[in-house]
Each structure stands twice: as structure tokens, then as C-alpha cells.
């Protein structure tokens, strides 16, 4: 049993911050009857147990928290640094994207890896982050024909959003590179790496370093830098 709290109808950091603030307030107050919550760009899905809280009572409690969401202070965000190989065999669309943007691939890599991204939310497939913060100069409409299979770890650009595919899946984003870090590992104690609200930076690495890190990831001796 769930209800959806809509805090806007746009993709923006402001709206998403209110969504995450509402989720944080629900956790802080330990709102009775709430079982779990799912944040997205602009809404919070609230799963609840109607045996513990009625629909009307929950709506009233949530309305009160929505008012506080504008001024709530969220805990400091984690900064996660992910190594990313921008070689052509990993960044399948890097050259085409650079051409479309009238810049060199080096410049595209510099702009992409120079930015700091905000995880709006994690979802669709396990551990997949939808992120804000794509510099205006490198924004591109999505691919006209989505790929049937995108390898996990692929760093993709689509419009104002940046995502990293967590499992092999279809996808319509421009693939600029690939991280050897697993965003979803079903055998790990914590299978997913990123959380809504995390900050993310991509650190360019060459193919040799990619292979070294990938081997350590496979041995489970690699941990990304989290500040």
C-alpha cells in the first residue's frame, strides 16, 4: 500500500532537494506506519501499513512535513570518486558526441570529468543513479535509436542527465566511457554503491589502469574513494 507525494512537475535540483528533505524528515520523525520510501526527480512514493496509520492521517502528517521540507537541513552529502576510462572501445559514442558538440574528444572528457554530479535518485534497475550537473556545453538529446544492450558501468549522457548503467540493459544515452567499479554487486554485503543525494566525480583513467582496477574489483579488494 503506497501513496505518491508530488512536489513538482519538473526535473530540477530544487524540486529534488525538497523530495530528499521530505524523505529525511520522515526518517527523522520516525513517522508511524511508513514502511519504506522511494524518491525520484520530483516525487516521493511512501509505502505504508494501513493497519498502523490511516490514509487521511498519513496525508495530514505528510502535508505538515512538506511545509518543513523547504527549510530542512539535510546531512552532508558523500562525495564518491569513480574512475572512468574514456577510451573509444569503452566510450562507444564519445567521438560522435564530440563531433555533434563541435569539440574535441579531449575537451568533452575534460568537461565531463571536471563536473560534479548530484544523484537525484537510484532506481529503475538496482543501483542505477540518475544524476544532475551535466555542463550546458555538453548536453545532447538522447540517441534516436536506443541500444539493445549497454554494458554495466557505462557512463551515459542524455539531455541534462548523466547516468551510469548498473546492470546490462537497453539504453538510449550517449556512452562516453566506462567505470570498472560495480554500482550493483548482488554478492556484496551492500549490493548497491550510490544513494540519492550523493555527489559523484569521474576521474579519467587509461585502459591499463581500468584493467588493474577491474581485476581488483573482481577480487573484491577495491573500494572507490568516498569522502
Amino acid at each position, binding site marked *: 500500500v*503506497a501513496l505518491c507525494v508530488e512536489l513538482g512537475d*519538473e*526535473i530540477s535540483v530544487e524540486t529534488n532537494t525538497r523530495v530528499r528533505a521530505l524523505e529525511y524528515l520522515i526518517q527523522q520523525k520516525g513517522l508511524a506506519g511508513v514502511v519504506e520510501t*522511494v524518491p525520484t526527480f520530483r516525487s516521493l*512514493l511512501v509505502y505504508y501499513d*494501513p493497519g498502523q496509520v*490511516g490514509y487521511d492521517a498519513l496525508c495530514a502528517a505528510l502535508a505538515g512535513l512538506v511545509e518543513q521540507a523547504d527549510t530542512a537541513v539535510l546531512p552532508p552529502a558523500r562525495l564518491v570518486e569513480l574512475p572512468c576510462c574514456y577510451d573509444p572501445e569503452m566510450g562507444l559514442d564519445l567521438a560522435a558526441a564530440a563531433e555533434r558538440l563541435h569539440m574535441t574528444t579531449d575537451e568533452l572528457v575534460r568537461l565531463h570529468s571536471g563536473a560534479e554530479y548530484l544523484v537525484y*535518485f537510484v532506481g529503475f534497475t538496482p543501483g542505477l543513479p540518475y544524476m544532475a550537473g551535466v555542463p550546458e556545453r555538453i548536453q545532447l538529446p538522447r540517441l534516436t535509436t536506443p541500444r539493445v544492450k549497454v554494458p554495466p558501468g557505462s557512463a551515459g549522457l542524455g539531455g541534462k542527465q548523466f547516468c551510469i548503467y548498473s546492470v546490462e540493459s537497453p539504453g538510449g544515452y550517449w556512452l562516453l566511457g566506462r567505470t570498472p567499479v560495480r554500482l550493483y554487486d548482488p554478492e556484496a554485503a551492500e549490493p548497491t554503491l550510490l544513494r540519492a543525494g550523493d555527489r559523484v566525480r569521474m576521474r579519467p583513467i587509461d585502459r591499463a589502469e581500468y584493467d588493474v582496477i577491474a581485476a581488483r574489483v573482481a577480487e573484491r579488494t577495491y573500494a572507490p574513494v568516498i569522502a
Partner: protein
Amino acid sequence: VIRILDPGAQSTVQDLGRSGHLREGIPPSGPVDARAFVIANRLVGNCDDCAGLECTVLGPRFGVERVCAIAVTGAEVPVTVNHAAAPQWATLVLKPGDTVRIGAARQGVRVYVAFSGGIDVPRVLGSRATYLRGRLGGLEGRALRRGDTLRLAPHVGPRRPRRLAGAEIPPLESEPEIRVVLGPQADRFTRAGLDAFLSSPYVMLPQSDRMGARLTGATVTHTKGHDIISDGIALGSIQVPGDGQPIVMLVDRQSTGGYTKVATVGSFDIGRIGQVKPGQRLRFRAVAVAEAHRLRREFEQSLAQAAGGGVSR
């Protein structure tokens, strides 16, 4: 120990599912027809959340290597123990060397098999349920294969074998009426589209799985496009993509999605949808939120009493 001689079409280890991980993109999993699953556990003296099997359409064949009790519920299937017919919705007491065969469903889709003690696989994120697409939980995150062995947890103590009376067995209907609460994007559909959704039958498609029940029937017409900015997807959310054909999201659903949602199936009717065979029809009926909550309470009360009541964990 249970030895899998033939896994059937798709058999997975399930308990009542994991909660709290949808915000990381990990769905609850668990049985689609939770009532049939819980009754099976009760018939062998287990707690409601003990791990058992969910088998789709064609059941497994397995051998038992210790004294145990099993119960087979859900879809209507032929069950044999050492080639002799055995009843469903009943406690079956087995001895080492017995072989059980669960055949093809005559009615319904999902069969549940509970074993006394429950299947002992490690808990992952608090649950033994299998999430196939995420290769998580259950037996190595996958469906059963020939040659697999399943350990059973020690059993607390035998209970009197029982067999449910006909009236206690949830019926498998030929054209179930599924109750829904309209929204959250019902306003994104035309009046004619909503009328069609609530008045015409829909046919279950064979592509349906634990992620979603795909239906075909009258087009649920959108007013202005089928995309929204992604929201979380609740159990029973009915997404309508551009083709106007509804998809009911089930236990292995993606956590978020960007299609308009015309309505949500009440949690009490999820199991009934899960037993509708490909090619079979169903209908939707709208109820108000208060009515849906009343139906849920009724469902929970009847479940609390089913098969002589539950055993606390």
C-alpha cells in the same frame, strides 16, 4: 535434503520478500500469490515467512532424503508421490526415498510448495526471496536447475496433517474482477479511454512474468502523451505506455518508471491476477481508497484465519 530431479519451467525459492531496498532499485520479490504461499507454509507447521518454492506453469520433480512434510497450493496441478496421486492444499508426509512430481497447471499459473522447516538458503538483505533479474537471494540468485539440492532448516515439531475443505480453498476464477483505485495519473487519459479500461475485458499475454502482467484489450487512450517525469512504482501500479495496453506491475517490478499510471490494483487482488493464465480474461472495477482499505482489512482477517491460523515467527 531435497534433490531436484527436474526443475520444471521456472521454480524459485521465495519467502515473503525483502522490504526497504526499493530506494536502491531492489524490488521486494516474494510470492505473487501470497495467500496460497502462506497457506502452504501453515499446512506444514511453518511460520508464514519460511522459504518455499514458487513454480510457474510446470512444476518440478524432486526426491526427498529425510522425513518431512510438504504442501502444494496455488494453481491446480496434478501431484504424485511415488506415482500415486496426492491431494493439493493438504499436508503430505514424506519419507526418505520418496519422489514427488508436480505436473502442468490445469488452472492458474503459480504453484507453491512448502517444506517443513523451510528451505535453508542464506538471507540476502534480510530475505531468502529470489530476485531473478538482479541475480539476488534464493539459491545463488537463480531459478532451480536439475541436480540442485535444497537444505531444509530443522523443524520445530510436527503438526497434525490437515487437508483444507473445498470452501477454504481460494477459487481460481475464469474471468476475475480485479479491484483498482484510479490514479495517480488517471487525469492523463480520455473519458473514453477510462470507460474502456473499466468496462471491457483484458486478455493476459504470455510475455507476463514476475515483473509485470502484460494485458491486451481495448486501448486506454491518453490525452497528451504517455510519458511523465519518473515516479516510484507501487505494487499493482498499472502503467500504460504509448500503445494504450495496460501492464500491472508485480513483485519483481522496477522501482521507478516514466509511463502514465491509470490505476493501482489493490494488494488483496495481486494474487488473483497472478493466477490468470495467458489467453485468459479479466476485468477491472474501480473502488474508492476507503473501500480498498476495507477490502484489505477483510483480506487480512480471512488470511489470519486461513488453514487454522498462523504460527508466530
